[in-house]
Each structure stands twice: as C-alpha cells, then as structure tokens.
C-alpha cells in the first residue's frame, strides 16, 4: 500500500502549521506543546488513546477552542482563529465526530447552516440551496434522495455524507475529520475513504482522526501520535509498521527510533 502512494512535495510552505500549541482546562494540560503541519494534497492522521488530546487539538484549529499558547500558520501567514466562523474564513472545514447536524432541519438547511443563500430581499432561498445540495450530493453519494426530510430520518452514512458535503461544498482548503467512519458500515466507510482520496487528489490538506490504525496506514501520508496531551512523534507511514504505531500509542515511544 505504501509503495503506491504518490510523493508529497514538502518543499513548499505547508498549508497549515500548528506550532507549540498548548491548552489547559482547569489544571489539566489537554494539549501540551504540540506541533503538526499539513502540506497540500496530504492526509495527516492523528492517533492516540481517548483523552490523548486529539479532538482538543483539532477543535483549536476549527475555532471551537482558543489555545492558551502557540501559533497557527496558514499558507505561510500567521492566522488568528477566534471562532468557528473565523476558521471558515481561512477555508478550514470540520467534520465533527458528532457530525454537528441540526436533526430537525433537512439536508440543505444543514449544509448551508450559517452560510445561507439569500434572495435579493435578504430572505433565505430554499429552492436555490436545495438545487445546490442536489448537485453536490449527486457527486458525493448518488443514492442520496431524501432532500425534504429532517436529517434525523437519515441513516448514519447519509448523515455522514451531509456532514462531508457541508465541509467540501464551500471551497475548503483544509478539511478536519474527527472519526468520520466510527459509526459507519463497510460500504459507507469505503465511501468516506473514496471521498478522502478525491479531496487529496484535488490538493486539499486533510487532518484525519481515527482509532483504526489499519485504516490510517491506508489513507494517511503521515501519522502523528499523541499521548497525555503531548506529541509522541510524527512518522511517514512507509517508514513504520502498524506495530510501531501501536507501541507509540500505548508506550508513548517509537521502538525503531529507540533502537537506532
């Protein structure tokens, strides 16, 4: 699998660089001096136990949390992300583990939530939004037909495709995915993997969180492992085995590097 991967050009400026990020919640150091970067067309995986700080780290990038210290650089320029809307202004889109969908609204209302298309009178243009939703869903998940029902009536995979559509519709440059396949069946997981490959081919940078190391080895170019809020290390997937990654997650160190 690793041999088939195209080489990522890492000589250019990274799409996003998080430098020395720290955040504490009431005395608990949730993220401690962590640095990661993502290049165009690259998928970077974040691994670690529950509570290792992965979700907290990406929520800082997504604007949901404000970091205590550290810097975020987007395309070589220092970024100031204060809110989810602020992150969107930098073309950072996030697919949360919970999907963050309003269950009582339909697919197009969710897709455009916070960024509605409006008519010249300033009223929301439902028809135009549904037409756009039909277009993008046709591309992502051609089987999707339930446009006029609340998303609570959709299956897990359908809900996931709405959440993904929301992330990719608005010209995203960086997509954060927090366990996008955790609640999905085999076919739906494949669909998500296909979408990740497509986004990668378009030159987007992707930060992927998952517990499935095999999936991560297949999808990611590099993996960063976190433990107790700190970064254990970042490795190119072709340089490590699944066992190496597992020991990084469990023991907090890379046996190969220790040996060398």
């Amino acid at each position: 699998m690793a041999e088939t991967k195209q080489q990522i050009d890492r000589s250019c400026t990274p799409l996003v660089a998080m430098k020395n990020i720290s955040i504490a919640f009431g005395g608990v150091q949730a993220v401690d001096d962590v640095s990661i970067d993502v290049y165009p067309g690259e998928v970077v995986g974040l691994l670690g136990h529950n509570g290792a700080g992965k979700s907290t780290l990406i929520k800082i990038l997504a604007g949901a949390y404000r970091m205590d210290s550290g810097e975020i650089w987007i395309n070589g320029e220092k970024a100031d992300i204060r809110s989810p809307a602020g992150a969107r202004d930098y073309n950072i889109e996030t697919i949360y583990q919970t999907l963050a969908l309003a269950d009582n609204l339909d697919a197009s209302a969710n897709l455009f939530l916070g960024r509605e298309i409006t008519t010249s009178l300033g009223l929301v243009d439902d028809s135009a939004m549904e037409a756009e939703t039909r277009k993008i869903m046709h591309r992502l998940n051609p089987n999707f037909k339930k446009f006029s029902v609340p998303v609570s009536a959709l299956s897990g995979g359908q809900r996931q495709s709405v959440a993904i559509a929301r992330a990719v519709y608005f010209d995203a440059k960086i997509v954060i995915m927090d366990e996008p396949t955790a609640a999905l069946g085999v076919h739906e997981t494949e669909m998500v993997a296909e979408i990740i490959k497509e986004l990668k081919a378009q030159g987007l940078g992707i930060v992927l969180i998952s517990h499935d190391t095999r999936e991560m080895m297949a999808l990611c170019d590099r993996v960063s492992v976190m433990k107790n809020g700190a970064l254990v290390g970042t490795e190119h997937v072709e340089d490590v085995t699944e066992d190496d990654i597992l020991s990084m997650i469990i023991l907090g160190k890379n046996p190969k590097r220790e040996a060398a």
Partner: protein
Amino acid sequence: MSDSTSGQASSAGRSGPNRSFFSQLELDLRLLGMIGAFLLICILFNIMTGGQFLTPRNLFNLTIQTVSVAIMATGMVFIIVTRHIDLAVGSLLATCSAVMAMMQTAWLPDMLGIPLGSPSLAILAIIFGVIVGGIIGGFQGYLVGFLGIPAFIVTLGGLLVWRNVAWYLTNGQTIGPLNETFQLFGGINGTLGETWSWIVGLIAAAAAVLALVSGRRSKLRHDFPVKPIWAEFVVGGIFVAAILGFIAILNAYEVPSRVLERQFEARGETVPEGFTASYGLPISVLLLIAVAIVMTVVARKTRFGRYIFATGGNPDAAELSGINTRMLTVKVFALMGVLVAIAGLVASSRLTFHSNDIGTLDELRVIAAAVIGGTALAGGVGTIYGAILGALIMQSLQSGMAMVGVDAPLQNIVVGSVLVAAVLIDIIYRRRVEG
C-alpha cells in the same frame, strides 16, 4: 448504502398513483387534526347551548378574545423552539400596558402638554410601550444568554418583578378610559366595516393564491417534484373559501340598532328606515394576521428564523456553524417582549382601561396555546399557525364552557386537563410518525 436505496423505493412509491388523497394535497396532518378538534368543540358547544355558540356575534367575540394570547403565543413558539420558556409574559404585559396607559393619560399630557384625546397620544404611547417591551424582553434574554441563568428562573423572577413594577407605575389604580385612537385596537371599538372587510378578504385571498403559484413556479424552475395541478387547485380553493367565509361570518354580525341610534344621535341625525351596518373585520384581528404573517416569514424565510430552529434542534451544531447563539437568545426574548407589548395594547384597549390584574395567568394560556399548537418543549419544533390555532382552541373551550354555565373552578380544571391531554396526543402522534 443499503437503506438509501430502500428510501428511494419508498419515495418512488409515495409519488405513484397509490398515494392517498390527503397526501397528494401535501397538507399538514397535525394542522388538519387541530382544525378538526376546533370544529368538534364548536359543534359540541353549539348543540349544548342550543345554537348560541355558532352565531356571528359569538364567533366575532371569540376572535377578538383570542387575539392578545395568540399574538404572544407566536413569540412563545420561538422561545420554546430555542429550548427556553417565558413565564413572565403575563406580568410583562401588565407593565407594558401600564406604561402605555400612563403615557397617554398622565405623562405625555403633563410633560408635553398634548391634549387628552389627541391621536398622537395613542401613537406615542404604543411606540414607547413596544420599545419598553423589547428592552425588558432583551434584558431577560441577556440574563439567559450571556449570564447563563436558566430562562425558567429569570422569567419566574420576572413574573413577580414586572407585575409589581406595573403596580408601582400606576399606584395600583385602574387607568382609564384610554385614548379613543388607542381603543381602535381593542376589537369592537375598531372594525373595518362591511366594504373594507371584503376588500381586505379579497386581497388576502389573492395573496394566498399568488403565494401558491410562486411556490410552484420556484419548484418547477429547479426541477423539483410538484404536486398535481388539481391538488393545487383544491388547496387554493380551500384557502380562498376559508378566508372569504371568515369575512362573511364577521360581516354577518350587525351593529345592534340601539348602538346605531346612539351613533346617529351623536351626529344629530336619525337612523334611516331599514339601515343596517356590520362590524366586519376588527382591527385587532388584522393586527394578529399581520403578526402571524411576519412571524411565519421570519420563521421560514429569514436567517434569524433558520438559526432559531437550528439552535433548538442542536445548540452545539449551531454554535459550531458560527451562529452566535447567545445573541440569538437576546433577540428571541426581545422579540417576545415586543409581541407582549402589542398584546398589551390589544388587551387593555379591549377593556378600554388598564387594570392592575391585566394579563394575570396569561403566561399559562400562552404556553398552553403554543404547546397545544404542536410546539415541542424539547425544542426545535413548532409552527406559528399552530400556536394561533392553539390559542383559538383554548379560548373556544373557555368561552363555550362559560356560555354553557360551567362553574369557574371546573372550567379551569377542564382547560388544565385538556392541555395535558393535548401534549399526550402529541407525544403519541410523534412516536407513530417517527416510528
């Protein structure tokens, strides 16, 4: 994706010829159920009162009695949809009513020297009352949204505070009679008369048809499925018949000859032989219709409305979508305050005076109207027309029982029980729909 294909099959099945008559009309089942309940109540009381209930006079009165609570219920929908509650509306109504009454009878005449009876008194009092309502509502929203005090507590406190602020403003006195222009909004003292009522009815009917046509056009433009053309005609026909029928009923209520005699006497004339006049559409009802239209547009067609429902459905998702949910709470409560002030205008001008106990227990009627109208206390679900119908059902129950001669305590027992039963039916209905 296995179940998306089954979903496809079932939706294809729904658009086939086997669809039932009602589903082709695409009418809201809940709405039909509520209209059915309302008609049932009307027919039952009509039988029990020997035909007294379904008279133009009683229906006219029923309509104007409903307006105040119905106006507030539309705002309560937004409050409950965003997972809050407002227990202070009855007391806030008293404060707004007291402010408006004092403005027109004491403050403005004393300070600016505007003569009593001047229409400008009414206009200034209404504007000021609405501003006060909006500010107090917004303040309560600030306590809820920004300081994180539960709405239940903020408005429970408000229930006591605003009732007694009203008491201080008026020294506990009844203030009246209110300005004549002000009284136009009360109901019987301000109606459009026969001709204008028909004109308004025809405009409303035309607007309803136009809305259907433009809705269909918009769907066709984007190649979305539309219902069969005969169904559009049936729905349009129902709308037009309902609007014009309503106007016809109101126009059938004629001004009693004694009142006409008095009116003509005041002008130094006598009533011509065979002269009759109708009350027609009350201005207060016109006000309610305007509020209903504006609130429905806000709910369905504005970002503000979209965010209200999104926040009610999933507050975290709304926040992660960049919606300022705290400010949204302030706006929703401020809007409620404005509607309470408008309701206070209608309530006090219907009585022709401000009394100390005005709006007492209105919070319960308003919440009951919204909930009977299908607003879910869990948030995210509710309609404006449902709340108005809910208010109408509550009022018809209360009026009907009073006409039948049911004891006052028993009336309240029945209304309370109906509220609980309505929510139970709603829960069962939802379970069946959501399967």
